[in-house]
């Protein structure tokens, strides 16, 4: 099969790789570039664990032809932290116990970043819409929604839900 050279920005650094015609972006990111943060959860475009941003837009990389990102800017969860400094979303997910198995987490964070980049003060409904293409089987979504709102500084802090000291009656 013919290989085609492409160049794109991945989390701000330039990447040049040869891709096969028809090869999907998820496979290229994971196997050719070595960015393992997008996850393979269905290869059907339905679970959202492979979500990346292409020029700021949420995209499922499993259904994206790699050759179409020529010249584009691709962002993944690997680019969220600034060196050792975590993104506010990452901090909020940690504080809010918003991950269990952690497999959907990178895609979930990317979808949340896409939202906050465009809308720094989202409503709960905005958050729900933004992550509606990301499936999670562990958490029941509520801690994730709360964590994204907490990161936006706009919702109640998810840690506040918890009356850990117990109740005396």
């Amino acid at each position, binding site marked *: 099969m013919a290989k085609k050279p492409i160049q794109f920005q991945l989390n701000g650094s330039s990447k040049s790789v040869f891709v096969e015609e028809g090869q999907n972006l998820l496979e290229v990111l994971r196997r050719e570039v070595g960015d*393992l*943060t997008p996850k*393979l959860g269905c290869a059907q475009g339905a*679970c959202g664990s492979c979500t990346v941003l292409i020029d700021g837009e949420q995209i499922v990389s499993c259904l994206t032809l790699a050759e179409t990102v020529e010249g584009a800017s691709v962002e993944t969860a690997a680019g969220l932290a600034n060196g050792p400094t975590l993104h506010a979303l990452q901090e909020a997910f940690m504080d809010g116990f918003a991950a*269990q198995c952690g497999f959907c987490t990178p895609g979930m964070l990317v979808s949340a970043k896409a939202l906050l980049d465009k809308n720094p003060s989202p409503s709960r409904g905005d958050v729900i819409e933004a992550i509606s293409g990301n499936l*999670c089987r562990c958490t029941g979504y509520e801690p994730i929604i709360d964590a994204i709102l907490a990161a936006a500084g706009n919702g109640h802090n998810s840690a506040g*839900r918890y009356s850990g000291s*117990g*109740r*005396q009656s």
Partner: protein
Amino acid sequence: MIEFRKDIFADERDDNLNEIGKPTRRQDILGHVTGRSPFYDDHQFEGLLHLKCLRSPHHHARIRSIDTKPAEQMPGVHRIIQGSDVKVNLNTLLSLMNFGEDDEPVLSDKKVSYVGEPILAVVAETERQAFDAIAKIRVDYEVLPHVLDPEEALQPNAPLVNETMPGNAFPYHEKYNHQKLRFGDVEAAFAQADHIVEDRYQMSPIEQAPIEMCGAIAAPETNDRFVCYTSTQALFFSLGTAAKVLDVPSNRLHFIGGTVGGGFGGKVDSLHEPLAILGCMLTGRAVRYAFDRQEEMQVGAPRGAERWYIKDAVMNDGRITARKFTGYFDVGAYTRLSSYAIIKAAGHLPGPYTIPNVYADIYCVYTNRTPATAMRGFGITGVDFAIESHMDQIAHKLGMNPIELRLINSYMDGDMKAHRREAKNTALVECMQVAAEKSGWNIAPDFKAMSSHNGGEGWRSEIPHTVTDTNGQIGNGVPASTVRPATTSIPAYVPSQNPSYAAPPAQPARPVSPPTPQSNVQATPTAPPQASAPASSSTPKRPRVSRFSSISGTRRR
């Protein structure tokens, strides 16, 4: 909102611990939010090959012949793996615990028993090439009659699904074609009940659906060993299974896992590790074998369907005096873990209630569908749906508050459970009280004052006279009804003759009874009626074979 009711059972706890009880962050959380947690598929190998299986398109078919030649010539194909390449091509998962009999091939190249059953495997440079090669393989099938309903599968003339399991039922304790639970005399209680409430409940097959799909990557390691990265929920289950079917010493296998993207029971079956390692042995290359999502949904084992029939004897004051279950676990074509889950279900009955007469027959039934396996609440979730739906049907019939009905029958400390062990450390009463309070569902003051500490009085702690039977016996035993002496001198439970009981009303509008189980094993055709009651002690005594058998139907390794 979460609240901790530290006031309840406060005197049973020391809450002043350093680390226990603290909301400490997860150890793995930084890895999760940075995407660095190492799942099995996050390990990279040079020259990784991919394994895919040719799968049965039929529910049930004999394989006359397989022609793999056209596939061998296809681009990228490194190896076609057949059943004959698997050294021990028959296994059952729980053989690692000495439970059950080997009944499932790794690759079924003689007969297929469900749609999707793997027949052979192709190892190629890409998944696409593997699929293209599979499309070239020609299989000559002789399609056989199939059975999909568990009750039909128990009929005498049903197609035989699994040749290791005559009669399509798992043999329990080398003795019966079902698991029995017998406590007291349900028929006597039915005869004296104010009401009989019965119905049929059906649990659907459900996919575990973890977001990470099942798979394994095997690669050659130094010193003639193989490393295997896996999504398994049970590392040594998978290692032991691979060692057994590939006939290699366990210390030549190096399994790495432990960081898994959800499981919910769907990653116990150890289907991927043996084939990935075998592919690695046969090609000398790293081999990845993973389900795609379609395979997860239709080939990977789901939570199996369960069908439960419940018949209760109920008094007007809300006491349940007898509960009879007939349960069918539709386990699909092979046993996997279902035989064990049924024993778990038997030990769970009659649910969290103290009922003086309990009877259950639970069948592990083979049908021509995807084998079932574990899922969150295995053996319990399905029957809890049945029991708790049934409790509401009783409350509706009696016009009672459904929470109060449950509190009347709730098990408490000191009560005797149907499997003949004392209930301890119970907390059902308090959970019901708190849930009622939180939701503003009123219950009477007497019920608010109840406590789990107050069980075990009178008959509640006793083992009653119990009627036993030999229905469903396997082999040449003569069915007989016997009365087993109670271990105490307390007589069988008799509902009190409280004059306030009204006359029994009409039968339920929609009684649904289980059919009398057909004994299609080699039992005598004159199977007795179900537990005739009261049992006569004049019936011939069956020789006692042994007090206990092993938990396994058959001990074999």
